[in-house]
């Protein structure tokens, strides 16, 4: 019995050491399963980042469908200087408006944005549709179906926004990831999909437009959405680093410097090029403003598309 009491006491102590002191180890939460698109980038980011921080870091995958569980854990660790999240766009800028969550855009100390890839509007190469105009015309008789990697994901939102803002008639069919959606597109179960350059290059797809404010390098003949006579729609898949609220200013500055150095490092750049992740660094203040702007814009889309009240 005594040994039990001792070990309980030791456990409580171990629990209590999780204080405001910066330790030698850093917990990097990735809210997706190991091997996923976000995880790969995070795992290439981690070694350089921890070197610059002078700590040993551990990537911890806290997987859940829409990445909210891992994000909520970081938001809930207020004041803990030894935990950060490598966060995807969805859990920061979409999920809080879609679900009742324990966090919102104000629950974090923003460190940096690392990468960002604009999304393209795509159809299968085997279809005869060559332009957005044609797509709209053909959809009038019989509405098209567009796929997404799940409800409330960026591919879903981008298409929902497009349908609301144009004459395109299309309905949503969610899949459990980009892969199954691509399978459905190949089998003509769905006809349209919005996703990033990686998807566009890996499959037989034809881009019709890009969800960005101007044309994208490498795809100069793909028009931006606002050139099609529509309001500008800006949708990109981005990732960034956030820490919990309540950490000291020096710690936040230390994180920010390490992040900047990592993104500029040769090693991370080479990787990003291979994985087709477009490096798009934003510092703490710009990143915070960016997330809040995206949060409001996405909220509006969700409302317009009737996905929330």
């Amino acid at each position, binding site marked *: 019995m005594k040994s039990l009491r001792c070990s309980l006491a030791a456990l409580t102590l171990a629990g209590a050491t999780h204080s405001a002191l910066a330790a030698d180890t850093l917990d990097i939460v990735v809210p997706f*399963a*190991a*091997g*996923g*698109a976000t*995880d*790969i980038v995070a*795992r*290439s980011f981690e070694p350089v980042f921890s070197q610059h921080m002078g700590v040993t870091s551990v990537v*911890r*995958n*806290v*997987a*859940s*469908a*829409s990445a*909210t*569980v*891992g994000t*909520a854990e970081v938001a809930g660790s207020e004041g803990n200087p030894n935990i950060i999240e490598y966060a995807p766009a969805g859990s920061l800028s979409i999920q809080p408006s*879609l*679900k*009742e*969550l*324990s966090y919102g855009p104000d629950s974090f100390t923003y460190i940096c944005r690392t990468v960002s890839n604009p999304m393209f509007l795509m159809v299968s190469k085997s279809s005869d549709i060559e332009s957005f105009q044609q797509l709209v015309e053909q959809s009038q008789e019989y509405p098209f*179906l567009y796929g997404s990697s*799940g*409800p*409330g994901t960026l591919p879903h939102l981008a298409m929902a926004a497009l349908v609301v803002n144009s004459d395109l008639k299309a*309905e*949503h*069919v*969610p*899949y*459990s*990831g980009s*892969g*199954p959606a*691509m*399978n*459905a597109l*190949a*089998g003509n*179960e*769905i006809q349209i999909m919005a996703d990033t350059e*990686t998807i566009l*290059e*890996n*499959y*037989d797809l034809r881009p019709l437009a890009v969800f960005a404010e101007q044309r994208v390098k490498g795809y100069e003949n793909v028009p931006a959405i606002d050139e099609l006579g529509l309001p500008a729609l800006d949708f990109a898949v981005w990732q960034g680093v956030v820490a919990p609220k309540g950490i000291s200013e020096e710690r936040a500055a230390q994180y920010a410097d390490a992040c900047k150095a990592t993104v500029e490092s040769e090693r991370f750049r080479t*990787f990003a090029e*291979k*994985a*087709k992740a477009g490096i798009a660094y934003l510092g703490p203040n710009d990143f915070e403003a960016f997330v809040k702007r995206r949060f409001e814009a996405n909220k509006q889309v969700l409302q317009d598309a009737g996905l929330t009240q």
Partner: protein
Amino acid sequence: MDVILAAAGDAFTWQALLAIVIGTWAGIVIGGLPGLGSVVGLTIFLPFTFGLDVITSMALLIGVYCGSVYGGSITAILINTPGTPQSAATTFDGYPMTQQGRVDEALGWATFASFFGGVLSCVLLIFCAPQLAKFAVNFGSIEVFALVCLAMLCIVGISRGSLLKGLLCGMMGFFFSMVGSDPITGADRFTFGTQALSSGLDLIPVVVGAFALSEIFVRFSARDEEATVIPEARLRFPPLGEIGRRLIELMRGSFIGSFVGALPGTGAAAAAFISYATAQKLSPRRAQLGKGEPDGIIASESSNNAVTGSAFIPTLALGIPGDVVTAMMMGAMVIHGITPGVRLMADQAQTVYALFVVLIIVNVVMLILSKPSIGLFRYLFKLPLGFVMAGIVMFSFIGAASVRGNPLDLVVAALTGILAYALRRGGYPLAPLVIGMVLGPALESSLRRGLLISRGDFLSFFTHSGIATTLFVLIGLFLVWTLWSSFMQWRAKLARRRQTSTRVIE
């Protein structure tokens, strides 16, 4: 030909061979430990691959993957606890054989069937990948719905004794799979307003609870009985004549596994259940299934290992990962600068062929390592029963916690264990619960997606395509067959009773 030789050269480097041996060995052990399965194994080894070259890292991961799918069968046979969900169907006949003292034979069949399925699917992958991938693309949501319905029917077959109890457990598993986010609207359901439940119940904690923990409770509640002694694990390969006699079973299981593996979003556990259900209808020894018949082990093990090869078909031919495991391998490829996609076969032929060679070597190595691995488990299980059980509990919880890093999964595993113990004491079969849990998400999302595609018209499912119609007709035939045979049984029983009663009157 030059490409193939060059690829073989890539695969036969000492680094790659070492990676294969280490990966396969580790995979078998990880797969054999309840709770630790393919995904956990790959998560452990993924970080190591960052420093290796492409072929070596793929060799390591493929070894872990194939080894773990095979390893699950060892504990399924020895202690009625599948090491991975993929081997759940192996317990149906594997454990009865153990109870009859035929451990060596059961392990021999499991090993040989795994090898056979693995190699056959490699051959299919090498020669028919583009064709199979093209065919798999025709499997849209409606076709998958029909296929899953067909697989669900195997609940009928394995709930011997009481169909009602089997169906109840199946419904329970199906319900467990519905907790969490709605696949179509994304809204939370059955979460009681808690964020922890919003990611749903994972398969691994439920399987760990239902099989491993409940088995331990059962053994402890009956610890003085003869049945709780774990028999000494030995391996005896089936003689050639026997293999020839059951060749059809091996082929059928391997083809079903290869085919199901090529469909995105199904996986090895579903393949094993589908294959077992087919064996129940087509095996010449079907009357013995479930009572310790090698055909049952063959159906399960040949199909789940066939998935390991064919899961690469959509990944390599289309860049579409078939399940979580291949998604992780695709991730590893991307890290090394290979982006799987429609052009992979053309652009990176040498790498792709090297992967084929690696897959075949892995299966051969698996066959060679099976004996020492089973020997290892023999030593482990020679320890006092209490230690073995404690070890299983520990690994079960480690496995449950490490899949998603969600502490709730530990609670889920413990509660499922208690529930499963109660169910077993009440004579409820647990396999339907796992089948419901495995097939539930596929059934629900394919049905609802199908309804979106057909604009809410369910009747058009039956005429959607040739494949769908064929599958629905098969389901109809199966139902008619089952009803008809139970009707005939009932009549025979009635006639017998009438005979005896008239005899009494006379």
